[in-house]
């Protein structure tokens, strides 16, 4: 009986997950689209009207905002993807590959805001790079008047996005490489005399691209609608579209809500169009590349490519690491003026003075992150296990639904979600926060776990079942131990995602739950780098600890089992 019930519960896991998941997104979208067409009773909007749209299109900065959004979003996605593919293709047989791989995971854990704040200090005209060479080499006794941060073309924002997206795409690519048995493909191609880069591009890339397609779309959607990084790195006159939406939502003139809602809908349309366009481009590239793929040319050793991509990837990661280092230094700074290369006076004041808020924000971050990561992992494992037992393959459509919160711009549905939460009377509660975080945590957990889970050799399970173990016993005694590493790793990713959430925390928490991220962003507005440094550093440290545990625990538990070490 109990076994029967167990299976039943499991069978509902996908449906339950979907409802939990899609209800807020749908409600949020409707709650945003209705005001976009003039319907928002609380503000006296009772009937259909396009006034919001008219006002939006009359906004003189709209053209520049759109241009900025599109260039930053597309450029950063293309750059990150090209860099990742180029690097993996040209360096996967080299030593630098392993070294950088170890370096990149911690970078994935660092929240966007921390990177943005650190990067801004690195590249500003009065920033670290200029200080290194001033005034002795450059002659600049005062900082030059050059817009190297918040530049009108959005290069700073693009750079920040690349620093943040490269690690994500890199790890997703590695996971895909694992599943497609790329090493075997490579071995065959290499034995046929193909050069390493050509072999990779011709035999591995076509197999893995479908696997990293959704992550690429998620990156594209994110870059097009990023708010927190844009607030720090993008120009302000005008800012990118997503920042405009937030600005209008926050306008004291409440009738601007209609314009904000229209702009949020436009943002949604742009992301949808960009993803559609990208898909078309994929088809085009695939078609154009086909003759090249089969023309049999072997290609060279790829040494030049390897050094170019190896160097660029290292530079990007180096930028990320220096950003964090700079902020770490600032957190211990008392005075550090231009053009000093290092602080002229240091102190622990910033840490001491923030003691109380650090503790509170840290505990909130920890509890929300752990809860949402744990719930997400349980749901994902339940869905995947159900999929195995029912032997149904999740349809692509199902996967797309799961991805909805990552593909829909946050700013486009969070206001509507907030109204829903208020109606359910759970707004500003811990649970509402966990739920909202779950929307963003779950897809990433699914993304990082599903492939390892599906690729676990079914014969292990069958052997166990043949030996008389029940499905549940098999699950607990065979699958969980074998998959412990990817499960913990997925949880760590989920935790890192939760830690980094800014807008969702702001909207669902009603500001009552301060996290390290909300503190960091609200203080970034105050521009005191010392205090921002404290929070940025902490914000980066927590996920790194989680990753450390995710790697350390299985290594410790299975230190005597060589066979389990390789499965990840």
């Amino acid at each position, binding site marked *: 009986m109990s076994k029967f019930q167990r299976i039943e519960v499991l069978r509902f896991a996908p449906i339950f997950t979907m409802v939990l998941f899609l209800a807020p997104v749908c409600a949020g979208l409707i709650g945003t689209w209705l005001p976009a067409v003039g319907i928002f009773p609380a503000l006296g909007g009772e009937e259909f009207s396009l006034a919001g749209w008219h006002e939006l299109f009359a906004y003189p900065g709209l*053209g520049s905002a759109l241009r900025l959004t599109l260039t930053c979003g597309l450029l950063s996605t293309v750059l990150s993807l090209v860099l990742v593919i180029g690097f993996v293709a040209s360096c996967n047989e080299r030593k630098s590959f392993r070294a950088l791989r170890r370096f990149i995971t911690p970078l994935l854990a660092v929240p966007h805001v921390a990177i943005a704040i650190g990067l801004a200090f690195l590249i500003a005209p009065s920033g670290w790079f200029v200080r290194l060479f001033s005034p002795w080499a450059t002659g600049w006794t005062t900082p030059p008047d050059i817009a190297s941060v918040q530049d009108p073309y959005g290069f700073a924002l693009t750079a920040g996005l690349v620093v943040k997206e490269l690690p994500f795409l890199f790890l997703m690519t590695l996971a895909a490489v694992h599943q497609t048995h790329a090493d075997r493909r490579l071995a065959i191609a290499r034995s046929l005399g193909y050069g390493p880069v050509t072999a990779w591009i011709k035999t591995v890339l076509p197999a893995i691209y479908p696997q990293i397609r959704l992550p690429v779309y998620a990156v594209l959607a994110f870059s097009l609608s990023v708010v927190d990084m844009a607030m720090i790195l993008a120009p302000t006159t005008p800012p990118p579209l997503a920042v405009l939406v937030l600005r209008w939502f926050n306008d004291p003139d409440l009738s601007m809500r209609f314009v904000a809602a229209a702009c949020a809908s436009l943002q949604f349309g742009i992301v949808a169009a960009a993803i559609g366009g990208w898909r078309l481009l994929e088809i085009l590239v695939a078609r154009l590349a086909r003759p090249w793929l089969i023309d049999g040319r072997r290609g060279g050793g790829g040494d030049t490519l390897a050094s170019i991509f190896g160097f660029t990837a290292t530079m990007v990661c180096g930028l990320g690491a220096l950003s964090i280092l700079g902020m770490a230094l600032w957190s211990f700074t008392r005075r550090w003026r231009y053009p000093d290369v290092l602080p002229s006076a240091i102190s622990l004041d910033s840490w001491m003075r923030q003691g109380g808020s650090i503790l509170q924000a840290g505990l909130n971050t920890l509890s929300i992150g752990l809860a949402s990561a744990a719930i997400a992992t349980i749901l994902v494992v339940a869905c995947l296990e159900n999929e195995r037992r029912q032997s149904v393959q999740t349809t692509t459509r199902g996967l797309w639904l799961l991805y909805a919160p990552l593909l829909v711009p946050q700013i486009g549905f969070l206001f509507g979600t*907030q109204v829903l939460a208020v109606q359910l009377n759970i707004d500003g509660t811990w649970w509402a926060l966990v739920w909202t975080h779950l929307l963003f945590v779950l897809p990433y957990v699914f993304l990082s776990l599903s492939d390892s889970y599906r690729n676990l050799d079914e014969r292990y399970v069958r052997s166990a079942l043949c030996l008389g173990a029940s499905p549940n016993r098999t699950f607990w005694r065979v699958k969980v131990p074998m998959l412990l590493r990817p499960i913990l790793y997925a949880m760590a990713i989920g935790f890192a995602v939760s830690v980094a959430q800014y807008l969702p925390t702001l909207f669902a928490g*009603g500001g*009552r739950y301060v996290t390290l991220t*909300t503190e960091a962003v609200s203080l970034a*507005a*105050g521009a005191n780098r010392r205090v921002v440094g404290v929070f940025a550093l902490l914000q980066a440290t927590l996920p790194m600890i989680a990753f450390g545990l995710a790697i350390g625990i299985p290594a410790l538990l299975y230190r005597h089992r060589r066979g389990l070490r390789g499965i990840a």
Partner: protein
Amino acid sequence: MMRTIYTRIRQIFIGLACLIVVASAAQSQALAQTQSQNPTWDETLAAARGQNVYWNAWGGDERINAYIAWVGKRVWDEYGISLNHVKLADTADAVSRVLAEKAAGRTSGGSIDLIWINGENFAAMKENGLLHGPFTEQLPSFAAVDFEHKPSTRVDFTVPVEGLEAPWGMAKINFIYDSARVKTTPRSVPDFLTWAEANPGRFTYPTPPDFIGSTFLKQVLIELTEDRDELQKPFVSEERFTAVTAPLWEYLDNLHPHLWRKGELFPANGPAQRQLLDDGEVDIHISFYPSEASSLIATDLLPGSARVFVLEEGTIGNTHFVAIPFNASGKEAAMVVANFLMSPEAQAEKQNESVWGDDTVLAMAKLSNEDRRRFDDLPRGAATLPPEELGATLLEPHPAWMTRIEAEWQKRYSR
């Protein structure tokens, strides 16, 4: 499925609309009742004990945050009130939230108990019936407020306060510069233009609608306009707006090419500009608190050579307040906190430059000798101008001007 959701949502919205109408009626009735009963202060204190106050206040300055934490400790010790500072990046977030709650029909048990507010945000909340009160007459500390010499405690950006917000502190535009680097400073708005031409790239102002940036625009407008009284009322016609603001735009068109980043980029807010001054990227920072310079030196955020200057014709000043949303959960406790904030003890602590350096709203003449000494004993840093050198205080124009100027600024310079 979609269709049913849509109808459902529509039903909810229609329901909500009805609720709001009923609720606002109920609210005005409740208002009438509180006024007629006017519970004595002791009853308020008793009801406040044990309540939570979620105070939504801009959290961008950690010195102010530390002061708010001190207030939290004091009201806990004194009144048993648990004060939580909800740190906002923008006060409008809180307005937004109260609105979302009103949209969802929550007329009590709201998530915000107290808001740090003034100007446009106050005007918006007052106009949309989002505020509780009038309540300030019930607060004992309110009697010592200096209405006579600080008229902005009664009229917030020309909008009558009518007891809906309690005065908390006084702001007045002043300019901070690094005397080690800058020898001559402007004395008037036209002077700024000459100064900027002589020192290209060394001046800027925060992006409007940031309040300091907007205030700078108003300062320019007031000084360049012929009839300042006209700014105290909403503009009567488009023609008048265009005519009155024409000198402002002409001035800005001339000024911008000489600004930091050639006027193509502006710092996000006041503290961002302060960081630019400390980094040496600009030479002047616009401050809203007369003793901010000394306070920033004391907290190592600016060099010891930072000094203050004001303009010959005076600078804009205003008052900032705290208000209680109509649906606040802990109204009594919020009132007790508002009362404590106006007390001589809290006001003197706030004015202390090593704490915050924000000027008091109280009249020294209305205080007891003992309380007056709290203020007399405050240290005054080298960068703080004595009151007599601070110049005249110019009145804020009506918010209608400000809103329209901000939109116009966006149209002209943010494209």
